[in-house]
Every structure is written in C-alpha cells, then in structure tokens.
C-alpha cells in the first residue's frame, strides 16, 4: 500500500541515554525508509588539542573521549607513546593497568546494558547497574582520586601504586559482582518482551560487519572470532587465561549476550591478576640506567620526565577497548609536542553501519539497535 512519506527529526537532545546524536528519518508509515545520522554535536577538537599540548599534557584529554571507560583510552595513547619512544614498563605496573582496564570493561558493559534496557522502557536494570558501578567507582577513587576522568596511566607505568586495602575491597567487589550478574541474567535473559524486541532485529552478517569496520563486542556478536587481546596481544594478556565470547546470530540479542559473557570473563581475568600480581619491589636505579639526578623509578613506574622528546617517527597502536578497537596514530617530529594525533575510535566506526542496519525497522527498533551498538558520543565526535 502506498502512503505518504513522513520526515522525523530525532535529536540531538533526545530521551535515549547515549548523548547528542541526531537522526533524520524518512518514514513510510511506521517503518524507516531511510535513516541519516547527523553527528558532530560534541566535536571538541581533541585532535587539534593533541598538537598543542605536550605528550604528558594530552593524557587527561584521552579520558574525556570515551568517558564511560577512560582507563583503556589512557592506556591506548600511552601505549602509542611508549612504542614510539621505546619505554620499558615494570611488570607490576602492567598488572595494575590490566586490572584497571578490566574493571572498566565491566563498568562499561553495565552502563551499556543498563541504558539499553532504559531505552526499551525497563528502568530496573539501570538502577541495579549503577549500584554496582558505584562500588567500582569507589575502587577507582582509591586508586587515583577520580571517579570518571582518571589520568592514572602514564608513560613508563602508572602514577601511584595501589593503596592498602585495595585488594580486599576488590575481592569483595568480584564476589559481589558474580552474584549480581546472575541476578541480571534472571531479570533480563528470560524476559519475553525483551526477546521480542531484540531477536532478529538489526541483523548484520559477519562479512558485512567487517566491511563496515566494526570491532569489539558488536563484531563478535556477528560470529567473527576476533579479540585484539588474544590475537594481537599486548601488555600481560598473553599470560592470562580467558576466552573470546562469540555469538553467531548477529542480531541485537547476540550483541547483548556477548556483553553479558564478557563481564564474566573480565571477572575471571581480574581474579587471575589479583593472584599473580608481583609484589612491590623497589627497582634499583642501575637497572634502568638512570642517574639519581634525573629522577627515581618506583615499583610501578620507570622514571618519566615531564618534558620529553621521543625520536621522530610515526606509530599506529591499537588496543581492545570495551567498545572495540581503539587506536592512536601518533606522529612525532622530534619536538616536545606530537606533530599529529589521530584517534581511531570504535564508536565512530561502529556507528557507520546504522543506516543499513535499521532500514525497514520501526523507530523503537532503531533505539534498540542503536543501544546495542553501544556508542558514546564523546568517542564518536571527539
């Protein structure tokens, strides 16, 4: 049946909880004929600021890209700088880094699932999720004094060693979280309305997903077994035992389940990190060949001067952030500031596919599909 076309503008301020995205929708009755995402409402010029600040000064800005999971952002940039300058990192620092990143992965998935359910009209999950998130944030606060924007990981290690009483609290959190994930599953997984909203909605094949440049849990939901932690390992991930969570279906529900499973894997990693963390050991200065005049390395950080100049060169370094592949392309021209910083953000590349993903669906399904892609607009617009 022929019907008139209707144009709907959604956003940039709209009730779904991901930020200031805007969709221009061309509707045929109730189904979407064409969806044009308009982004850039949070474009803050981070890449230009990267050129104006020194290497160390730019680290706080990386926190504010993907502000739900900031530790991996810190780490991705610092990893690029370390590769560029060839800086060694103490083993204990690597353990602390992985610990923070995996904790942050859990937090990210909690928020992502919570806001997805909230967009679908179920407010319980976000209340529960933020309860557990608050516990995790208290752990972050013990580490570095900040709740969301950490500036904790720095070239050569981390800023400070973990404080007393952190590990017992972390163990408590892990134990608590195990029970909570079971709670979540009981709340959501069997819910029939949820199944009807999520199953066979926003289906994408693995081949298309790769073609669109999808990465992270969204890609693994389409049956592509790929995780940079496993197949291009960095930090201490080669020593850890964890499995890559993959689902075949490629629909919204699969992406949601992958996130659920990843939380469990992250808890598993956390337990191993706590068990195997090397004890505090004061590193002798001779070990790093640094004279006492220039600074003191600690157990968690080789000394790193405030102003430093890596040799000229360029590097593209990437990690598996909670949302997907997060890469930093850093070009150094041998001065104190980077010549160019390019951020490859997972949210930006994952959002590319949305027009084809939601074609023919209803508006409500657009919200569901958008929610399972799990973008953060700070990461999209930079």
């Amino acid at each position, binding site marked *: 049946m022929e019907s008139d076309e209707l144009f709907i503008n959604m956003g940039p301020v709209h009730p779904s909880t991901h930020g200031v995205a805007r969709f221009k929708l061309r509707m045929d009755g109730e189904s979407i004929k064409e969806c044009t995402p308009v*982004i*850039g409402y949070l474009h803050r010029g981070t890449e230009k600021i990267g050129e104006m600040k020194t290497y160390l000064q730019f680290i706080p800005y990386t926190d504010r890209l993907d502000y739900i999971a900031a530790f991996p952002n810190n780490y991705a940039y610092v990893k690029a700088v370390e590769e560029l300058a060839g800086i060694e990192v103490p083993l204990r620092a690597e353990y602390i880094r992985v610990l923070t990143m995996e904790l942050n992965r859990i937090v990210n998935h909690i928020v992502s699932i919570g806001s997805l359910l909230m967009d679908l009209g179920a407010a319980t999950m976000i209340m529960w999720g933020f309860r557990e998130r608050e516990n995790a944030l208290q752990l972050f606060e013990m580490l570095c004094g900040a709740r969301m924007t950490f500036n904790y990981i720095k070239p050569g290690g981390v800023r400070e060693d973990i404080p007393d009483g952190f590990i017992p609290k972390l163990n408590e959190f892990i134990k608590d979280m195990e029970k909570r994930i079971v709670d979540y599953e009981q709340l959501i997984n069997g819910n029939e309305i949820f199944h009807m909203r999520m199953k066979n909605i926003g289906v994408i094949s693995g081949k298309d997903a*790769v073609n*669109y440049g999808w990465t992270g849990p969204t890609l693994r939901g389409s049956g592509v077994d790929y995780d940079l932690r496993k197949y291009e390992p960095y930090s201490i991930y080669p020593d850890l035992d964890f499995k890559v969570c993959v689902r075949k279906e490629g629909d919204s529900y699969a992406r949601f389940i992958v996130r659920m499973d990843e939380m469990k894997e992250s808890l598993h990693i956390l337990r191993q990190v706590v068990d195997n963390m090397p004890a505090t050991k004061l590193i002798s200065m001779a070990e790093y060949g640094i004279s006492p005049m220039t600074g003191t390395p600690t157990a968690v950080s080789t000394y790193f001067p405030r102003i430093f100049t890596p040799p000229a060169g360029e590097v*593209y370094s990437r990690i598996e952030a909670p949302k997907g*592949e997060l890469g930093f392309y850093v*070009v150094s021209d041998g001065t104190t500031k980077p010549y160019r910083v390019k951020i490859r953000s997972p949210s930006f*590349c994952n959002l*590319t596919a949305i027009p*084809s993903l939601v074609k023919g669906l209803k508006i409500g399904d657009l919200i569901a599909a958008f929610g399972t892609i799990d973008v953060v607009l700070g990461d999209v617009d930079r």
Partner: protein
Amino acid sequence: MNSAEELKNLLPGSVISTGLQLNKPMAVVKKEDLVKAAGKAKEIGFDHLSVITGIDYRDHFEVIYNFFSYSKKQNLAIKVNLDHDKPEVDSLTSLWKGADWLERETFDLVGIKFIGHPNLIRILLPDGWNGHPLRKDYDMNTEQFVTIGDNGDDVVSPDGTNLLRRK
C-alpha cells in the same frame, strides 16, 4: 617477507617503496594506483580497514591507510603522498563501506578530497565552516559561531548574532 613486500611483488609498478611504520609493514603507493593497490590488498586477505589518517606536512599531504587481515593476523599500512595545492585521491568507498565516514572525517578536518565518494560533505563540523582545523595554517584566532537556519540545519555565522547574549 612481510605483507608490504608481498604487495610490491604483486604490483611492482604501483608500489614506490616499502618500509616500516615503526613495527608495521608499510608500502608507499602512487596516488593514481591507490584503489588498485587497496583492492589487491583486500584480495590477499586484508579485509579490515582500520583507520584513514590525513597529515598536513606543510609542503605536501600524506594519507595513510591501516589495514588488518583477520585471517592472517597481519598488519599493512598503505601511504600516498599528495600535492599541497591539489590534495585529491581516489575514494575507497567502493571496496569498504566503512571508508565512507572515515573519508568524510578526513575531508572535514584535513581537507583532502576523495574523488568518487558518494556524499563528500562535512561530518563533524557544520556545513559552511571556514577552513580545515587540522591543517597547520588554520586560523585559530577567528571565532566562528553556528545558528539554526530555517529548515533546522546549521548556519555558520562569523559574529554570532541571535546567539550570544551580549557582544
């Protein structure tokens, strides 16, 4: 033999030189042959276009494409050099749909034109913005403001009338 050399063996006429981008193999390609080289790379398994980076070197532009192969678990970077006066290169949207937004972003912020792109408009900044911010000669001192036009789209205005409470 790393992947860049493999590409050079397959396309000796197009690849100018091979080298390393710190730890990843990189091939410098003639800008006319970019689509050919990228297509070849896709054929030999590099199915993931990770990132497109445009860099302004004051006298010339460089565009760097980072690829990854899910099957072989290898990296490859392809670099093209462009003139500063005429920064134009062919678009890869026919090969990767994901290249669409990455190229639009590079056009928006660095000002490199991708020939053959179906919809090459600004993506992060509003249409009508003056200049490309990631160029080294971008004027950081002149403020530009945005207001809403009649049909709801952005209009860039230099003085911000209707927007600011006071001058």
